[in-house]
């Protein structure tokens, strides 16, 4: 059960200081990974963005949420809401006290043998120490109705009820019994303010 990670500060010396910059990338290799972690994120940007494709190894059923934790905080200090379409109906969910953020959908090997979920996550004003941190996501997958699991597309919003600057982001399948599969790919970017 390897855990993949990147020390972002280790490569910042190579970055060019312009508006949208690549910070680090994690690609899941053969054997899968329990989670993906970006750590030592520099506080030199205004916003962060993660762009990803992802799938879990579950071969017997449908998808799970893409969930995460900030700064290794495992307490019930998060809130999360989602609005998504299933191809047949619209669902809204939410909770105000939970131990993970929800930022997207992770398709399964069962639903999309050759396809992946994809999405964009924004972590807004992540280095500001005067307010809680808001995270939003846009994501989903389509399977062409393989195994009658057509897919989802949705909007996601989470709140970390802590004023610390975000220095690490851990992402994982909502059902932690199932790892992320090979070829899952996460890229972290920093966006500068004026």
């Amino acid at each position: 059960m390897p855990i993949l990670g990147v020390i972002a500060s280790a490569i910042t010396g190579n970055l060019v200081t312009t508006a949208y910059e690549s910070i680090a990338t994690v690609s899941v290799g053969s054997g899968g990974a329990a989670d993906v972690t970006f750590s030592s994120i520099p506080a030199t940007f205004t916003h962060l963005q993660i762009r990803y494709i992802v799938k879990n190894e579950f071969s017997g059923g449908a998808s799970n949420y893409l969930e995460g934790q900030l700064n290794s905080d495992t307490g019930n200090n998060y809130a999360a809401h989602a609005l998504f379409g299933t191809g047949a109906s619209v669902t809204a969910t939410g909770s105000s006290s939970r131990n993970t953020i929800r930022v997207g959908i992770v398709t399964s090997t069962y639903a999309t043998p050759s396809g992946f979920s994809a999405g964009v996550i924004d972590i807004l004003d992540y280095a500001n120490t005067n307010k809680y941190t808001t995270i939003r996501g846009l994501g989903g997958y389509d399977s062409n109705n393989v195994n009658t699991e057509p897919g989802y597309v949705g909007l996601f919003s989470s709140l970390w009820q802590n004023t610390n600057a975000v220095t690490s982001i851990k992402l994982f399948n909502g059902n932690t019994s199932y790892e992320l599969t090979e070829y899952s790919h996460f890229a972290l970017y920093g966006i500068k303010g004026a």
Partner: protein
Amino acid sequence: MAAGSTYTPIATTTLGSAQSSITFSSFSGYTDLVLVNNSTCTINTQVIGCQYNNDTGTNYSKIYLLADGSTAFSGGNINENYAVGGEAYNTLNTNIHYFFNYANTTTYKTAIVRSNNAGNRVGAWVNLWRNTAAITTIKIFPLSGSFDTGSTFTLYGIAAA
């Protein structure tokens, strides 16, 4: 190795006359693509189709989530001959189209679109192209009518570290 500065404009087109389709090619060297389209259509209320690599076969499917000011609804289609690149109206509509890991040759390709029209509705689509080939061309077109004069299309490339 960090890629450093990215989100690079690759091509921008502003239509000087109505045009039935726009095609982008020559966009190698990136991880993701983003196509921003601010357009009107000569026929009101059109779906914008999208085809990759000139594939006109029934290799696309999609799911959408839409809200029209009073109702939110979701639907989808399988085995279609186009992906969806958003919507077009006779009033300005913005579509932002995200192409993920478009150059990898291992996975089917997933793309997501966010569409906004202040006078009509707001929506999101997820598209699947059942092909593992790298995307080398992107063609977008309203299913009927043409993109109108003044419509703009900008393709960006995003490289990963």
